[in-house]
């Protein structure tokens, strides 16, 4: 079992928060990550900014623009990761072109071109990758490089994913499977969709843990997601919103990140209680 799997599939339901590294500037990230860990994060997702984030909604897109404007290159991202002092596994979420261009070599097979990125990520302390614009059908070269350096490769399952594609992912996924709770891009939303239910049912037999995200912002969402059967909750835009607001009367960014993480974690714990209650009621 990888560190990520252990962290998500542990006894308690887990929280996987996301922030964009380098937002609003590279120096800020360490403090934010530590705050998220202090609030109860089990795994932390760090966005590596790419200029064309087609899978992200406006909140994260704006964060990415701030981070890019502040000079957050892939190399700077790795330097940030190296300075982090947290003992939760870190996942890098970014887009394929940055992996493909990393390193000096501008030719060769995909595997050869991806290898320097994965090696650098592993050295810096990244435990897993999420590459939303890399479809599972094209992922074998990256899977190979990830295996070589012991990095997990996480896939996103959408409500629309066909059974055939699901099977292809099941064969290749590691760490956890990221269940996208609704259609569309990332972004905080008002409620948890029914699609979550159905997706989790389709993944019931998978050996990797399942974390549900896209639109999670409130304690009740986390509760409902875990009560529905997820091992973990992923939340991004809600944290990125806090970073975007900056320090405020209600507290510094770090304080509010920690409080929000604690709130969502508490919701997840409530959800687990509900679920075990249901189990003893014979509802399962």
């Amino acid at each position, binding site marked *: 079992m990888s560190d990520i799997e252990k962290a998500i599939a542990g006894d308690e339901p887990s929280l996987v928060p996301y922030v964009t590294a380098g937002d609003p500037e590279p120096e800020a990230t360490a403090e934010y990550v530590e705050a998220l860990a202090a609030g109860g994060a089990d795994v932390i997702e760090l966005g590596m900014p790419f200029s064309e984030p087609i*899978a992200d909604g406006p909140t994260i897109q704006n964060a990415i623009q701030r981070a890019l404007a502040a000079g957050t290159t*892939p190399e700077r991202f790795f330097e940030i990761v190296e300075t982090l002092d947290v003992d939760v596994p870190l996942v890098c979420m970014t887009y394929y*072109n940055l992996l493909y*261009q990393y390193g000096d070599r501008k030719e060769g097979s995909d595997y050869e071109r991806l290898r320097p990125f994965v090696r650098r990520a592993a050295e810096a302390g990244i435990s897993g990758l999420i590459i*939303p*614009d*890399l479809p599972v059908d094209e992922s074998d070269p990256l899977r190979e490089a990830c295996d070589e350096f012991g990095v997990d490769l996480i896939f996103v399952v959408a409500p629309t994913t066909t059974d055939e*594609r699901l099977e292809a992912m099941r064969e290749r996924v590691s760490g956890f499977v990221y269940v996208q709770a609704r259609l*569309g891009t990332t972004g905080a939303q008002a409620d948890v969709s029914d699609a979550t239910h159905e997706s989790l049912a389709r993944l019931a037999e998978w050996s990797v843990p399942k974390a549900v995200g896209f639109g999670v912002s409130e304690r009740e969402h986390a509760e409902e997601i875990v009560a529905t059967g997820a091992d973990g909750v992923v939340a991004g835009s809600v944290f990125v919103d806090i970073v975007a607001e900056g320090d405020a009367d209600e507290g510094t960014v770090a304080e509010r990140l920690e409080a929000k993480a604690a709130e969502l974690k508490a919701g997840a714990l409530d959800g687990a209680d509900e679920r075990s209650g249901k189990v003893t009621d014979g509802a399962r």
Partner: protein
Amino acid sequence: MSTTKFGEYGGQYVPEVLMPAIEELTDAYERYVLENEDGFMDEFRERLADFGGRPTPLQRADQLSERYDADVYLKREDLLHGGAHKLNNALGQVLLAKYMGKERIVAETGAGQHGTATAMAAAHLDMPCEIYMGRRDINRQRPNVFRMRLNGAEVVPVTVGRGTLKEAINETMREWATSVEDTHYVIGSIVGPHPFPRMVRDFQAVIGEEAREQIQDKAGRLPDSVVACAGGGSNTMGAFHEFVPDAEDGDTTLFAVEAGGEGLFVDEDEGVAPHSASLSSGDEGVLHGARTKLLQDADGQIVESHSVSSGLDYAGVGPELSYLVDEGHVTPVSVDDDAALEGFHRLSQVEGIIPALESAHAVAFLEQQLGPDGVPAGTAERDLGDVIVLNLSGRGDKDLESAIEETEKRDIDAAPDMGVFHE
């Protein structure tokens, strides 16, 4: 299943949520377009004729021919309904969306020309339609914005980034990701994930099919060269597709003319390229669902492109063109903003045809190679030759506002003197 790639280029690099829509579209493309199921292609061709006005003429340009001492023929896509080749694709895709049972159309637009064509096709086929357009392009192309609204489309301004085509595509992909179940995304060029590059090319291939027959009727032989401007590359591939075997045989040279803007370099500090010549100077990478040649910095961040013509202002290019360039079957060349503007005025003056600023790049390439002050860049086998087909992708009415503004910034020989009309 049709292959998703052209050599190493192409593919389907999109978020998982879009994959089912792309698979559904691939299936529909194979059945309706490739196999003419339910007579789809027959209906498409019929509508292109009756609504679109096809075939478009292949006209000998007498004054240009004399100037260049060659036979210059213009494929008059500017005479297609809506004023550009874009209708071929828009009509094909909106009709396909109908056959697929989709209820709504979304599209992006750069110059507004694709948006206009899509709005027309959607009105013609009675489909609701929403069009995403960069804020900056909205300002550059007001007549087209008005035309889209006239035809009943919603125009949604995109304010992120520099507000050009690249941002509009990002935004349309996001919108599509929330509405894939009942919505079709009419992409505007031979870009994006498979099957778009192939399908759009197939819808545009009618240009070259007609041109190849017409030139044999008129000149009695195949052309020595076919010249077209390349933004994403749809009019280029539309004009070239039927001639690719001739290019392979060495009979015809295919020139893709890119926007050289203000010079072929990338300012890495600013993250901008003052041009849009991705075939001539881009590196392989992945953007908007396809692997292709891109303008990017050393890290792989996509840089902002530039062209005086918004329709060419894009940091990527169709994967098939990238492939054909690598194979040596298409020759990429570029002309800068100043030359394109001069081409715009020259064609208007000598032939009475106001070209789109995009097409003016192709016109300018002839002048650069064959004109009195021309500096031919070609080697013997890369010559334009004696019989030249130039694909005039669109008319310039949409560009009049920016042409006035850009002309005033420059000293252009062929430009009319408007001073007398100033109070």
